[in-house]
């Protein structure tokens, strides 16, 4: 009980005092997760859309693999990307291991299948309704994808937010490829892991409360933007 009370007190203190170290960690966490989600959306939305309308042999297997990739263990993803980016690995000469860039790569790798798989499902449902009208207008599947993505934007926003949830909550991958370096690659989740290691459970849980608040804020902003957009279109 002492730790729980202490956690809320330390969370309130950190937020009110605007601790510069905490601010740096919060901004870094946001920068990494939002960039990763942006990359994942730029790849995952068109990929999911294409998979929804395309018909080719082995498509069923591709869909199953993509869906399964949503459950890719972060620690395995981190290890794979560590081996790729390590100086002794194939991409070692870029020297991005233990930098925020490596953490963005790792999170984008985890989030892209989530965005792509959810997009595939949403667009496939929509494609049932749109196929005949679009075909009568002379639009084939490839030209239909941008229209489908745009008309499904509200559902797709949820897919992207699910991806953001995965990215911001994840610790296994970024701990390995980022190294949890103070002031360089220390994010909210790796800082929580570190404070737990030090036995400072109140501070760790306080950071957790800050992280949850942040996740709530990002989702609230996304929803507000969605409502504003919906009103603007009427």
């Amino acid at each position, binding site marked *: 009980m002492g730790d729980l009370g202490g956690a809320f007190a330390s969370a309130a203190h950190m937020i009110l005092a605007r601790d510069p170290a905490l601010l740096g960690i919060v901004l870094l966490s946001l920068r990494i997760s939002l960039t990763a989600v942006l990359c994942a959306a730029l790849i995952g939305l068109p990929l999911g859309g294409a998979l929804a309308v395309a018909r080719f042999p082995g498509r069923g297997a591709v869909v199953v693999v993509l869906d399964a990739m949503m459950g890719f263990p972060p620690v395995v993803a981190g290890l794979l990307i560590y081996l790729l980016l*390590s100086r*002794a690995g194939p991409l070692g000469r870029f020297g991005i291991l233990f930098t925020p860039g490596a953490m963005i790569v790792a999170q984008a790798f985890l989030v892209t299948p989530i965005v792509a798989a959810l997009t595939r499902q949403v667009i496939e449902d929509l494609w049932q309704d749109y196929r005949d009208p679009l075909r009568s207008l002379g639009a084939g599947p490839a030209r239909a994808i941008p229209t489908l993505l745009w008309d499904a934007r509200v559902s797709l926003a949820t897919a992207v937010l699910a991806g953001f949830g995965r990215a911001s909550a994840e610790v296994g991958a970024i701990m390995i490829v980022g*190294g949890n370096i103070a002031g*360089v690659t220390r994010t909210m989740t790796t800082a929580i892991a570190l404070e*737990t290691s*030090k*036995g400072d459970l109140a501070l760790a849980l306080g950071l957790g409360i800050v992280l949850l608040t942040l996740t709530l804020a990002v989702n609230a902003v996304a929803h507000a933007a969605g409502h504003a957009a919906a009103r603007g279109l009427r």
Partner: protein
Amino acid sequence: MSIVHRAAWLAAALLVALRPAAGAEERFITVASTTSTEQSGLFDFLLPAFTRKTGIAVRVVAVGTGQALKIGERGDADVVFVHDKASELKFLDAGYGVDRREVMYNDFVLIGPKPDPAKLAGGKDIVAAFKKIAAAKAPFASRGDDSGTEKAEKRLWADAAIDVKAVSGTWYRETGSGMGPTLNTAAGLGAYTLSDRGTWLNFKNRGDLAILVEGDRRLFNQYGVMLVNPARHPGVKVADGRAFIDWLTSPDGQRTIAGYKINGEPLFFPDYGKPAS
């Protein structure tokens, strides 16, 4: 085309917003080190002094000794700063590192619950204490993560002629994690554990754990620093890495190490250039 425009505009805005902050330190070295140096708070105290003096920032990746050596072996750090002499010498022999120097030492302590079911409190003989734990089948939390501390602990079990592999999962629990998490587990289980003194002194969630055995010569814990071999990994920052090693072993660096105290108690004792005890 509006969807393409919107997406492009959004992407551009996000990229601008997410650019790294200006003025980030450009000149830095990467040091693979152990959780004990970081979690004891030593680096927070030591590294700013070095950076002020030289303008070189130090990025520490704090993991177990086994993993730190692996990071050095793959060329992903410039300097390795760890505590297991046997594996350090193996690392040098294999040509992964050069210029090893002994920097400082501290000691391991046997931590346990205050009710002390194996009756160890106040003992000075660590091997006898380990034998008593095994005889009482009292819970013992081991790191189990190939760290310097685990290797020291395993050597003590061997000295006590106890095969802990055979009893792993019974009274002997391998947590497979760092010193702090293992201390958290010990506090939860009421288990004994071997810790470096630095991490213990800086550890907050002690529950009813306390130091029960200390001061045995076999609990000595030497820290060594090495440069990753630049002949093997051309990316290694030789000059700046060497500047760090030189400073750690200089009178100024050694004084700074000695000056790190918690509640007036020093955590590490500089010993560069002194004969091994």
